[in-house]
């Protein structure tokens, strides 16, 4: 029976994932990629929830439920976001975030 991975490891992974996502959001110019990086962040949060639930509070399932909802809403968010991006493409003929900086100061 292999001994189980300690919580900290998992938290480390999730945190790493989160910051990778954030890094992607900050650096990538492509809107779709940025959206994906955000999904990464959300997923890292999911990992958190599941891990906490599994390790610390196994007797109830709030964490898992929360994960489900996050996934759903992420989907919805993505749908709207992509719709907007498509519309942006119609008007700007590009999905580079740098091209959509008309409004500033």
């Amino acid at each position, binding site marked *: 029976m292999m001994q189980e991975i300690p919580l900290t490891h998992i938290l480390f992974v999730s945190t790493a994932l989160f910051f990778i996502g954030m890094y992607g959001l*900050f650096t990538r110019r492509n809107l779709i990629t940025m959206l994906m990086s955000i999904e990464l962040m959300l997923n890292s949060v999911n990992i958190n929830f599941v891990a906490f639930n599994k390790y610390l509070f196994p007797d109830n399932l709030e964490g898992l439920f929360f994960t489900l909802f996050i996934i759903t809403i992420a989907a919805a968010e993505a749908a709207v976001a992509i719709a907007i991006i498509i519309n942006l493409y119609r008007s700007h003929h590009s999905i580079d975030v740098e091209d959509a900086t008309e409004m500033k*100061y």
Partner: protein
Amino acid sequence: MSNYLYILWIPLLPLVTFVLLGLFGRKYLSGIAGLLGTASLFTSTILSFVAAKQYFFEDGKVNGVFQKIVALKYTWLEFSPNLSIDLGIIVDPISVMMLVVVTSVSLMVHVFSLGYMKGEERFATYYAFLSLFTFSMLGLILSSNIFQVYMFWELVGVSSFLLISYYFNKPSAVAASKKAFIVTRFADLGFLIGILILGYYGGSMDIGLLIERFTSSSSTQFISITSASFLGASMLTWGLTLIFVGGAGKSAMFPLHIWLPDAMEGPTPVSALIHAATMVVAGVYLVARMFPVFSMSEAALNIVTYVGAASALFAAIIACTQTDIKRVLAYSTMSQIGYMMFALGISKNGGEGGLGYMASLFHLFTHAFFKSLLFLGAGAVIHMVHSNEMKDMGGLRKLMPVTHIAFLIACLAIAGIPPFAGFFSKEEILTAAFHENKIIYGIALFTAALTSYYMFRLYFNIFWSKETTISHHGEGPWVMKLPLIILAACAVGVGFVPFSQFVTADGKPLVTHIDWVFSIAPVVLSVLAILLAARFYKNENDKSDKVVAGFGGLYTAAYKKFYVDEVYLFITKKIIFPFIGQPIAWADKNMVDGFMQLLATITAKIALLIKGLQSGKVQNYALFFFGGVVALSILFIYIWK
């Protein structure tokens, strides 16, 4: 003693006249303005003579001493329980004497003006202002409260301002009126502070109380004011000196005299009234009023003495050189007032030593008549030749005999030739000076000689000298001659009034006797001076010019009035305006206001500086977001935990 209450009407009547003429004069009353003014003033004059008679001959004296009677007292403005401005009427020898002088001279001037100002556009306004002045002057005389004196003091000043600037289209007149008002205002500041000092320490502003408290050397007030001192002088000296400064301003004492000559821009009757007989002696009156207190401070009295003497001499010298006849008269007025001042200065409070006091007021009394006579005479002359300059005159004695005689009498009077009025009063002054202070006596003597010299220089230049070019006769209507005649009569007669019986420092009659031996010196000097004047000016010659050349620099200096005006101009135009006024105005625009502006500018600058935050790049926004998170975390997890 309310049986003097009718005195209230003496100032009130002119006031009523002023209000009537001021409101309706231009439209409705312009025709009868002169008569109205004269009539009301005539009534006042009668009343004041009645008052004089009642006071001096009936009930003024209580067991041989003239009383100070407060006929009316009404609290007008209460500052604090014991400090208040009371409007009151004080009846005592000097106030009654002044009443007589002011009303009668003013009446003469009113009458004279009927002819002199005939046909003026603002005739009604002129009489309104005359009435205003008379009212203020009478109020000043009757004041029983030192702050009341100050109020009327100011009113007198403003009415003089209005009358000098009567010809308001003439820039010179406007300038003169401004000068007169501002210079006297400056002096009044001293007066005001003096009042504040006396009032603070005296715990009252009622003249009677003040005198009572400051003359009893045991009273707490006296001790407190003498013990408190500033820059080495006791507060009493300060207070009195400052009050004297006010007086000096009004009475054109050196160095505050510069306004008086210019004030001659006003109509000549006005000069006769205000700048010869009444307002300019207000300073003397003020000192006389407060004399008991003055007598408690040696220093203050010395200041009075020396300023008076200096002015007397200074003015006399200048008078010898002027060519504008009114200016000559103006300077002679200044010098005569100097006489009165030092006479007060050397006097003691009552007793034999009180001779100076009596003499001074006596001279004030006589001077009022002959000096106003001189001015009115000059007025008549100017009315004829339409010029103030000596060179335009000469040989007028045939054309205007009445004026000529009157003028001559006045000149003799001021020169102190017996039996004319001036002789007696001047004699007293010289006697007092001789007993008290030899230096002053010397100055006085010399001044007397100068006086008679320049007066006759004037006289000869007007009436003799070269033959006149003017052919037409006529001295103007009887309303102009009558006052001359009356005043001439006074100039002869008033000298015989037993003045010392009535007006003395302590109210006790004073026995005086003319010491003929003593009076030889001044009279002889005067006569010599007159002869000199006659030799120079009786008929055209160049002797005077030679002498002038002989004096050289001194003459020009005197002719230029010793450059006092220039000094004043320098101080105001070259120092106050550019070095105080303009810098302040500049600072207000650029520093104070500029600072406020600066705040606005800085804010705008910052706003412009940080606009980069809003870069428009959504990724930067996210970055700032994260930065915020990190900052908050550090701040609140590690620092403000």
